[in-house]
């Protein structure tokens, strides 16, 4: 299966999500706009996983919520199989809601504590397939629960009786029962222990192989994203910094931010512990007052006057990577980047 040849399942064009922020000290001073997602474009093809990485506040959660219709975009277009869809989920075609599902970050908080697991998992069917008989709903619930490694005995229990890893399996069962074509996973493993995290990542990969499901996998853990994604999108302050095939992004990142991000990940190898890592200095600028030009320039070691002049476009490099930087970095022979492990 080569997912790269198909037409896009989901296309996002110049999506913007801005939130008005009241100026609390001056009641009549008017509102300022917080640019949470600021002109993001990408596509997702059937059967592929797009990883979205970035630090907290980069807009990755807002973006995934906007895709599913939980946040209303300020502007931009979302296309499903080439057809534009309503950006608010109340006006969305119910068929689309069936095809696009979401898995949330906090596995326990995302399940209603007063609903039995059977009701939680069956809810997408009872909502989107009103014609389906009770017997078939139950049969499909049983089938999906078994696939998730949960037994029939669990069905009448409540969420608090399960561990975090089990709750996440229930969350995945709920997302998959309506047989969606795309599942948006917002930090699905970051609340889980390492050994459980590996179980969930493997489960999602297996499910994708079995059903041809496409995934958008939002996470801040670059190593996990590498294991599950085909392509990776790097975000910073609401904008796309780099979008590339997994192998080329991790092996030869072009954007200085991607490089800094990769260099900052601590490796589980004590013999490398005293290595100096090229870390980013400073803090994230306020999203209420974005820097002019490239938003990363205030922390970038390659920035010059030109970076402040205009916003860099997402240019295509020789290896197919799309990079929003006027000084993209390339590895020259013999010189490896810090991100590579030096």
């Amino acid at each position: 299966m080569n997912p790269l040849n198909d037409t896009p399942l989901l296309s996002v064009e110049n999506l913007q999500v801005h939130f008005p922020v009241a100026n609390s000290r001056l009641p009549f001073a008017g509102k300022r706009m917080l640019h949470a997602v600021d002109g993001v474009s990408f596509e997702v093809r059937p059967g592929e996983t797009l990883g979205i990485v970035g630090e907290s506040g980069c807009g990755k959660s807002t973006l995934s919520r906007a895709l599913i219709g939980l946040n209303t975009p300020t502007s931009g277009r979302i296309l499903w199989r080439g057809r534009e869809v309503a950006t608010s989920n109340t006006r969305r075609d119910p068929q689309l809601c069936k095809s696009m599902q979401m898995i949330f970050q906090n596995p326990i908080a995302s399940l209603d504590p007063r609903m039995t697991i059977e009701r939680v998992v069956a809810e997408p069917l009872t909502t989107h397939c009103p014609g389906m008989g009770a017997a078939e709903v139950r049969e499909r619930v049983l089938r999906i629960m078994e696939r998730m490694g949960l037994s029939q005995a669990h069905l009448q229990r409540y969420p608090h009786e399960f561990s975090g890893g089990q709750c996440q399996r229930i969350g995945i069962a709920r997302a998959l029962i309506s047989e969606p074509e795309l599942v948006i996973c917002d930090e699905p493993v970051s609340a889980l222990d390492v050994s459980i995290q590996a179980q969930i990542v493997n489960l999602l990969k297996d499910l994708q192989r079995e059903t041809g499901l496409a995934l958008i996998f939002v996470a801040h853990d670059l190593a996990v994203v590498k294991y599950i994604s085909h392509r990776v999108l790097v975000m910073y302050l609401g904008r796309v910094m780099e979008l590339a095939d997994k192998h080329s992004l991790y092996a030869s990142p072009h954007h200085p931010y991607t490089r800094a991000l990769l260099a900052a990940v601590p490796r589980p190898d004590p013999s490398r512990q005293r290595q100096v890592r090229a870390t980013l200095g400073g803090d994230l600028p306020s999203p209420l007052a974005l820097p002019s030009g490239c938003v990363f320039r205030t922390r970038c070691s390659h920035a010059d006057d030109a970076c402040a002049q205009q916003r860099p476009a997402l240019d295509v490099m020789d290896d197919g990577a799309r990079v929003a930087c006027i000084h993209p970095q390339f590895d020259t022979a013999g010189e490896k980047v810090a991100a590579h492990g030096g």
Partner: protein
Amino acid sequence: MSGTTMNPTSPLIEVEHLAVRFTTPNGGVVEAVRDVSFTLHKGKTLGIVGESGSGKSQTALAMMGLLPPNGAVSGVARYDGRDLLGMKHAELNRIRGDRVAMIFQDPMTALNPFLTIERQMTEVLQLHRKISRKQAFEQAVAMCEAVRIADARRRIKMYPHEFSGGMLQRVMIAMALLCEPDVLIADEPTTALDVTVQAQIIELLRDLQSDLGTAIILITHDMGVVASLCDDVMVMYGGRTMEYGTAEQIFSQPTHPYTIGLLDALPHLDDDGDVPLRAIAGNPPSAGGAVHGCAFAPRCAMAEEQCASVRPELLAFTDTDGGQRQRACHLPIAELRPGVRVGGAV
């Protein structure tokens, strides 16, 4: 490479047979920590790793006398030869925050939202050092600058909500280091932070340790952070120590099935990421249940009959490189999977 446990000078921290039990409202007993022992020398870093519920945080809280009223501690926890556990409150207060300081996991909730950073920082100094407010202020500003908070003189007058998570964690570290403690206990100091900020904090802790000779107990579930900072590593599971040795030993030659499983389950940035991760089957133990055998036995792929009934003792042994280390497992090391992956290498 021999472990720091071989260091001839007397250790700064000695914990022996520490156990923590909680009584629940319905009369049950939860054994959060069972028979944990370790030592820490000046200028060294001990990493305590384990998954949630393994008892790593409760070990630290018990040492500092910070258990809630329904928690009971037994065993010995000596700082500089004096037992912290049997100490009177007033005496303990002279050590806590002064000689032994703690960084808590969540900087947003560990600081008082009603007080400025300055008030919270100078409080420590005024209590332990009996110096004037003015002197305390100057010292607090200097420490904030040392942890690289820009514009410290102005920002120290702000409230916690005006800082980002990374900045607050620096404030916590600055506060813990104000009295230049001998021992710093850091409970998941970087868990709430982004990787780039985490890298800054790791470098900061490393620099401060080399400048001040502070000994650090680092509690974390992140093996990458452990490898970046620690000299010794203690791996906990179900309230017990599974394996204890130098970081070098634990990462390159793990001898306990749980440590091996934990390292295998990690996604590695340097792999090509196309192979499935090796997960540990099953779920972590719930804290309430009584454990007769090895706590890890229900999830251990190599468990034998005796593992479920007989608890393996934590025994010292000498490994092939001549290093001293400890493990709690019935299985002979030779039976564990050979060719264990060395962290990071492909």
